[in-house]
């Protein structure tokens, strides 16, 4: 019989060891899943984790890694601040869309003006767009005590409808012969978020993600605001005793998460995606929740988790095309990662003991 024993304090070793362990268990369980589907499990796992990095076509896939990881990391950093404080923003996907719409809106309004001011204005608008969308659940929570989980999640669907309306209506490309979708911003030089170093996938969004990781690290480990965020999440009463105003934290955490998600959306629409289209959002805002937890809500962990998650995305697509694995199997695989992480998390606070005799 196995027995759980609470540790006097959280184990440092397991705090760092659980994410790799979760990845390992996911590989085993995922392998079993792929085997059950009649595919060679070793080959499937290798396709997902090895091929994009070191395989034959890695020259194409490696830049993709940064392009996919950047929005995940940027969004997850913002979410992690709130999650640490016990503020559950589940609507990053909507904030991501609104940031993209605001950023693209500025660009389309200024088109065809070529100026160095265009891109910074778009960055500002993107951050503001996401921030404003996140302020809706924040204000409703402060004013009426609504649950931010529900409100932020519902607003994702509102944002999706708005995206569709924009792609079909006001933002539709006038020269597009009636096809839905805006002008392609990659062909508008002042607004294009292109590669900073050719062939690497490095664009402004990647730089922003890196800066966000560093700032979040400094905030959480050195600044009293970061201390208050952690305090509010761990012991809300102690936080009030320490002089933390819960309302301010709600505004700060939701606002920051919204602004970062908005930035991610803006960098995406101005670069890799290129245009506002009905199917612009691909679920980064939701996947970032997994990334945030996989990275233990720690900025450096989130950076690593973002890269890992991007890898499963890219590898998953490869496995779909080369091995004929169903898309649902890949999503299940990603879900398993969070599932197993939460399960092995137990080891951080508990010790597993083999019960030798019948003792309580």
């Amino acid at each position, binding site marked *: 019989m196995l027995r759980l024993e609470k540790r*006097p*304090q*959280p184990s440092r070793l397991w705090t760092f060891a659980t994410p790799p362990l979760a990845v390992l268990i996911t590989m085993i369980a995922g392998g079993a899943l792929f085997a059950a589907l009649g595919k060679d499990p070793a080959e499937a796992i290798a396709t997902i984790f090895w091929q994009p990095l070191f395989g034959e076509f890695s020259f194409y896939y490696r830049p993709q890694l940064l392009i996919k990881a950047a929005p995940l990391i940027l969004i997850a950093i913002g979410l992690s601040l709130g999650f640490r404080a016990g503020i559950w923003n589940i609507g990053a996907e909507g904030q991501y869309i609104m940031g993209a719409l605001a950023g693209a809106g500025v660009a389309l309004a200024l088109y065809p003006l070529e100026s160095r001011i265009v891109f910074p204005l778009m960055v500002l608008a993107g951050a503001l767009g996401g921030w404003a969308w996140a302020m809706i659940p924040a204000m409703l929570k402060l004013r009426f005590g609504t649950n931010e989980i529900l409100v932020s999640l519902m607003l994702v669907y509102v944002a999706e409808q708005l995206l569709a309306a924009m792609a079909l209506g006001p933002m539709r490309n006038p020269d597009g012969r009636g096809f839905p979708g805006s002008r392609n911003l990659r062909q508008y030089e002042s607004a294009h978020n292109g590669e900073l170093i050719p062939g690497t996938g490095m664009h402004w969004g990647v730089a922003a993600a890196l800066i966000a990781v560093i700032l979040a690290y400094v905030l959480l480990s*050195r*600044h*009293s*605001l970061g*201390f208050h965020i*952690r*305090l509010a999440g*761990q*012991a809300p*009463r*102690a*936080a*009030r*005793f*320490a*002089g933390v*105003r819960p309302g301010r934290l709600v505004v700060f955490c939701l606002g920051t998460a919204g602004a970062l998600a908005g930035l991610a959306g803006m960098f995406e629409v101005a670069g890799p995606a290129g245009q506002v289209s009905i199917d612009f959002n691909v679920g980064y805002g939701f996947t970032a929740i997994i990334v945030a937890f996989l990275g233990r809500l720690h900025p450096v962990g989130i950076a690593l988790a973002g890269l890992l998650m991007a890898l499963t995305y890219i590898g998953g697509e490869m496995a779909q095309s080369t091995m004929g694995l169903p898309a649902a199997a890949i999503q299940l695989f990603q879900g398993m990662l969070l599932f197993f992480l939460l399960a092995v998390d137990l080891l951080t606070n508990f010790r597993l003991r083999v019960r030798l005799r*019948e*003792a*309580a």
Partner: protein
Amino acid sequence: MTTPLLSINGLTRTYPGVIANDSVSFDIQEGEVHALLGENGAGKSTLVKMIYGLVKPDSGGMSLRGAPYAPANPSAARAAGVAMVFQHFSLFDALNVAENVALGMEAPPPMRRLAARIREVSETYGLPLDPARLTGDLSAGERQRVEIIRCLLQEPRLLIMDEPTSVLTPQEVDILFETLRKLTAEGVAILYISHKLEEIRALCDAATILRHGRNVGTCVPRETSARAMAEAMVGASFNAPRRAGQAAGAVALEVRGLSLSAPSAFGTALRDVSLTLLQGEILGIGGVAGNGQDEVLAALSGERLTDPDTIRLDGAPIGRLGPNARRALGLLAAPEERLGHAAAPDMSLTENALLSAATREGLTRHGFIRWGAARAFATRVIADFDVRTPGPETAARSLSGGNLQKFVIGREVLQRPRVLVVNQPTWGVDAAAAAAIRQALLDLAAEGAAILCISQDLDELLEIADRFAALNEGRLSGARPTASLSLDEIGLMMGGAHDMEVAHV
């Protein structure tokens, strides 16, 4: 000599790194009140858990009326006639009394029969209780009655009581004792755990003293002084707190007409609370738990705001200032609940030092934390208040209750407060640590600070407070000099006996 009711022979139980009980032996006779004494961590709870079937001994055994007794679980213990009233009540606020009683029974009878039985038992033993009342509306004393009646319905031969009087007024204590005496007259034995030595002297027929898991002696409490028992528990003599008699100074803190709504459905509203606190004095506020203690502390610490003029510090209105603005002015507080309110359980002592000392000790600069200074301050608290811990990086929750309490009080005292508000400063703390904390409060007052000490331990208030006031249902009585008060008067100030009556013996 007759066969003892319960005979304990060489019970030993170890936990990783600790011997909780080291071959403990003693007997409990039928119809006797047997006290179990010891500091926190002396092994009282482990011993009691073994008797109640919650923990199994590593070695040693027990016999009940001569027959071997080794309960596999609490229901086996209950079936054998052993019942227990826990220190922390396990009642559901949203259920009524009868439903709560039914939850603790093996095979509860139909609700109507059960309600009738509850009425019958409660009248026999002088513990009036309406089975239909909602538990959330009951006072602490009434909740305890629910627990006791739940046990009595099982007609136990041995009743274990863990710190039963810590939530009662003196009158309620008297009535509880009448009930217990009636039970013992019927032959029921009571194993009684308490820190209150005078109480044990009044009630108990025999006492067993535990220290570091060993039985270090038995005594007849009526014939032993409280001091001798305390020293046997600690294993050394210690100094009782001493105060330097001195005149009180100017008004430090003034509260006028403080009324606040209840923070939650089962909280207490404050009604027109007024008090004046002088420099250099300790004002004790007594009262049964749940009569507004937490709410008074929250209003003074700045966790809840009031009109500016309701609370004045050195004459300046501070009712609208938050906790850190008040700290900057010298008003500090130490809440009752150590884990989760005064301290964050999973954070280190360094982080917990930062929690309340950032403002006054300058532990942040331009919003950035000076971790070195925070660690140094935590280290100073640990050293000055004899906090037993591996170091300032230890998580707060891994400290024993008494050690964490010393840290929490020390953290505020070392910030040199002008006014310090403490709630239950020595709750669950062993005798030596409690004496050290009380001495620290007395020393602070001697240096001219004003101290408001909220406590449910009347002995503590009588020992250190210059004046005494009582909280009852959110109202505060006028303050009176402690020296001129008798226990009866204090009990009446605290709101009397909460409808208790003496058992119909």
